[in-house]
């Protein structure tokens, strides 16, 4: 592993640690202003949606398994809606690829 990679990993680790630990360490039961609180609360949806969009667009551009990709994405959403289980969602998504490989 290059020292550059290690450096970036450690910076990311430090950032993550600070985000997790500072409030608890300082017992900061901080009531952020509502605007900030609302802004922070929408981050999960936007960043994860953007990540998924990024993954899907990357796969659609570079690979020939577009159909498998799209159907796996749709199935994963459906499975998650029904089961509300992260584990089952991942299994279902991977299962589509398995099925595609087996049947095609």
């Amino acid at each position, binding site marked *: 592993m290059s020292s550059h990679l290690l450096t970036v990993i450690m910076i990311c680790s430090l950032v993550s640690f600070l985000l997790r630990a500072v409030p608890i360490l300082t*017992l900061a039961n901080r009531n952020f202003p509502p605007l900030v609180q609302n802004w922070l609360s929408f981050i999960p949806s936007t*960043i994860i949606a953007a990540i998924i969009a990024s993954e*899907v667009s990357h796969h659609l551009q570079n690979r020939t398994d577009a159909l498998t990709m799209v159907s796996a994405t749709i199935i994963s959403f459906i499975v998650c809606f029904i089961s509300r289980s992260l584990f089952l969602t991942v299994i279902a998504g991977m299962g589509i690829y*398995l099925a595609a490989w087996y049947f095609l």
Partner: protein
Amino acid sequence: MSAPEGTVLPLTAFKNGVIACAPTILGYWCIGFACGAIGIISGFSLSAEMALTVFLYAGGAHFLFYSLWLAGAETLAIVTGVFLINVRYVLMSSYLARFFKGTLLWERFIHGALLTDETFGVAVQQAREKGVLGFWWFFGLNLSAYLNWVIANFVGCLFARLIPVQFSQGLMFSLTAMFIGLLTLNYFGSSYKKYEILAVILSCALFSLGLLFVNANVSLLLATLGATSLVTAFFTKRVQGSAVL
């Protein structure tokens, strides 16, 4: 003297914490295994993969790191991405802080360092039931989660080379599937579902638009910031403008 746990012995509390972690272990294993395997398949060394596992200890950020690093993103972009995907921990951590009054600094250090979505979820349930979060219970929970994550990743690394090529595509998709799961679960947990949907649509739209001008990584971050700000603006306007019931 740390926060009182009633008459429960430390070892018993620790054991209970470990047991409380049990339902989430399967999830950790599945995703941890995939995480380790994907890391190796993508070309990361074992030491790099384990460094991410042991030090970063954040699944979402870990996978995001893979994407960004492999795409050649700048250090700042990677750190910003990791920051944004983990910024929700500030809210979780702030929420849990109230249960740690009277605890020692090093105890809080451990709790903070090992916080995850799953342990937060379990801890909140416990806090609501019992009213307190004893150190040993929480430590049992956190340590189990951490060790299982590390071991699962390691095993994933070991077996990565044994996975047939056809399976590895499916394995790579587990990354996307995990994010799909997180997005959906976040939606269900929200009190403002319509706004979450708006956020998702805006984010995807901005991302697609951004691709016309910048690369995917930059577009991802800009879409996140832009969509979040827009949704917050709509939300603030709506909530403030509507009649108070």
